[in-house]
């Protein structure tokens, strides 16, 4: 017998009823599950927010600590720069002390010679046996000794004067009017003991009549650093007799100091780094990497000039410092 339309409709209804009942059962279970998932999510997100806040706190602390560290480092760096400057001054003091020793020592010898001669003379006078010839001898000696004494003491006083100038100039940067070449020579006198221990020579050439209105202490620093660098870095084999030259000239609108050595030169890939603070190829020999940084700062900031370097490996290095005549250094030809 064929199922009637009613039969089919009834079967369909029964099926739908079964499905609905099953779905109801299932949805209860699923709802509980979803609720749990939702609660878990809420708790998870809360916890993550707490973590985020914590790590934000940690980050803030860290950045504060970093700032502090940077400050400390900046301070340490400026202290190092200061002490490198003092070291340069130290080199000068040692040199000057050595220089002064010679005339003062000679002076002491001469003075004691004069004292001895005078004592003999006084004794002869007291004995009443002083001869004309003896007296004349004494006068000759006294004249000679006092002349020598005078020249030695003059030399010492000159040295003290020039050192005082350099030292004062370096400790208080004051502007004054001075002869550039003479001043450079004075600086080099203080460096000469260091130089004498080597077989290198240093010559100053150029315009002897060039006066400028500027900061002499700054020049002393720059020259000292350049010379010590050449001595320290340019002749690593130690044997060569190097030629260092400092030339002073006046260009149209600037003063040019050109310092050269004929040493080993600077490799191309170091060239852009040498002015950076702490770049040194001689850390094991006490290099600080601050010398050229100081040169750079003094030239560009105090003297408002420019510094250029050219170098060729095995040929030598040349530092050219040019100072504008309108600011900082004002040349005057007397």
């Amino acid at each position, binding site marked *: 017998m064929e199922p009637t339309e009613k039969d089919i409709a009834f079967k369909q209804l029964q*099926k739908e009823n*079964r*499905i609905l*009942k*099953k*779905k109801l059962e*299932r949805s209860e*279970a*699923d709802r509980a*599950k*979803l609720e*749990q*998932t939702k609660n*878990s*999510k809420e*708790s*998870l*997100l809360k*916890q*993550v927010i707490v*973590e985020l806040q914590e*790590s934000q706190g940690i980050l803030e602390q860290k950045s504060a600590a970093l700032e502090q560290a940077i400050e400390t480092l900046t301070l340490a760096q400026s202290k190092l720069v200061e002490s490198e400057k003092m070291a340069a001054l130290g080199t000068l003091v040692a040199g000057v002390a050595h220089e002064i020793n010679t005339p003062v020592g000679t002076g002491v010898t001469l003075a004691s010679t004069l004292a001895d001669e005078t004592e003999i003379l006084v004794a002869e006078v007291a004995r009443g046996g002083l001869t004309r010839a003896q007296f004349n001898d004494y006068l000759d000696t006294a004249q000679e000794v006092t002349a020598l004494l005078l020249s030695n003491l003059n030399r010492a006083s000159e040295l003290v004067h020039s050192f005082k100038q350099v030292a004062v100039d370096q400790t208080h940067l004051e502007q004054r009017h001075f002869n550039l070449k003479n001043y450079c020579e004075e600086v080099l006198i203080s460096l000469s003991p260091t130089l004498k221990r080597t077989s290198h020579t240093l010559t100053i050439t150029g315009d002897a009549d060039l006066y400028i209105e500027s900061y002499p202490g700054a020049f002393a620093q720059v020259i000292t650093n350049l010379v010590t660098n050449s001595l320290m870095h340019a002749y690593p084999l130690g044997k060569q007799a190097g030629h260092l030259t400092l030339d002073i000239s006046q260009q149209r609108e600037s003063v040019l100091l050109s310092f050269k050595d004929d040493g080993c030169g600077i490799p191309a890939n170091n060239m852009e780094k040498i002015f950076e603070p702490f770049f040194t190829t001689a850390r094991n020999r006490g290099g600080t990497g601050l010398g050229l940084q100081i040169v750079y700062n003094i030239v560009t900031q105090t003297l408002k000039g420019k510094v250029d370097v050219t170098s060729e490996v095995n040929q030598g290095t040349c530092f050219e410092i040019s100072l504008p005549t309108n600011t900082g250094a004002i040349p005057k030809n007397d």
Partner: protein
Amino acid sequence: MLKVAVGHSNDPDSAEAVDEVIAQCQAELAGVQPRAGMLFSAFDFDHALVLQHIYQVFPELELIGGTADGEISSVLGFQQDSLTLMLFSSDDIEIRAGVARQVSQDPVTIAQQAISEAQQQLTAAPKFCVAISESLTTNPASILHGLQSALGSVPVFGGATADQAKMEQNYQFYKAEVLNDSVPFLLFSGPICFSHGVASGWRPIGKRSQVTKVIDNTIYEIDHQPALDFYHYYLNEFATDVAYPLAVYPPGEETFFLRGASGYDAEVGSITVAGDVPEDAFVQITEASLDAVIDGTRSAFEHALDQYPGQKPEAAVVFSCSWRRYVLGTRTDDEYKAMAALSDIALPSCGFYTFGEMAPFKNSNRSFFHNTTFVTLLMGHQ
């Protein structure tokens, strides 16, 4: 020629449901005999009866399948408490069913042996394998390891059978038999081509911690603390929650895979995850928004379409993690909608919600045991 038919019924009555499914398939096959098939069934059905009905009609069928936590097909979309069957018929594509039984005794060796036996029945080398694995009696990752080592570079796709979140019992189907502790599989060979895609949608959230004590798939300590504390910290419950799997970063790697925490031991403070975790791995809890989960579905399907080597796929088989369903709730059907929107309406599709998915990562042919992913397998005649 490859002919694919799909049937799907949500009638809770076992006999009514299976008869409806068979009738739908027969209508589509139009008299052609099917060679092989896959059956995904809700737990509550009378499975023996269902299989009996199928074998009365198709006595020669190479059939595999298992219990599911939700079923998907191109006939009814997503359904719970339903039955879905996909049948394949072809004159030149070979499809053989095999089974590994009592796998918990020695998962790796038994899976290996079963594959070798089934391979001997084939006249040509297999192209790929679809496996339906037990999920409760043993760690499915070791089963996959056994399958993969016998198959070499032939990829394995599939899912682990489920029981609607009760985690008590689940069944696998091999021909007319209802089994447990087993892994039935199909080997495909001959002029068939395929592609696949896999994606999740979960993203790590919170801080990264290190697994400091783990044995296989049981994590005892995280950051030297009982592993369960990790979940307590985030979820404020002394229990794990599968909807919040762990992102596992193997040591030294920046990519992660997901491991759902399927169980725990409150006394020891350990958690059991679905698949092994390397020692010293970093873990991070994960979270998924509904949209991100659906985006995952879309991107897995899109990737498979992009990679498909043939003219046009003729069938899609999908394996989606049941945990996706728990998160999606009433939006679960959007998974099917997202894939249907990308493919031809006519593309026959069938799949189920699993307790773990098997598929290679993108651009690889060694399969991996995943959690919380959506796996798409596309196939068609060459």
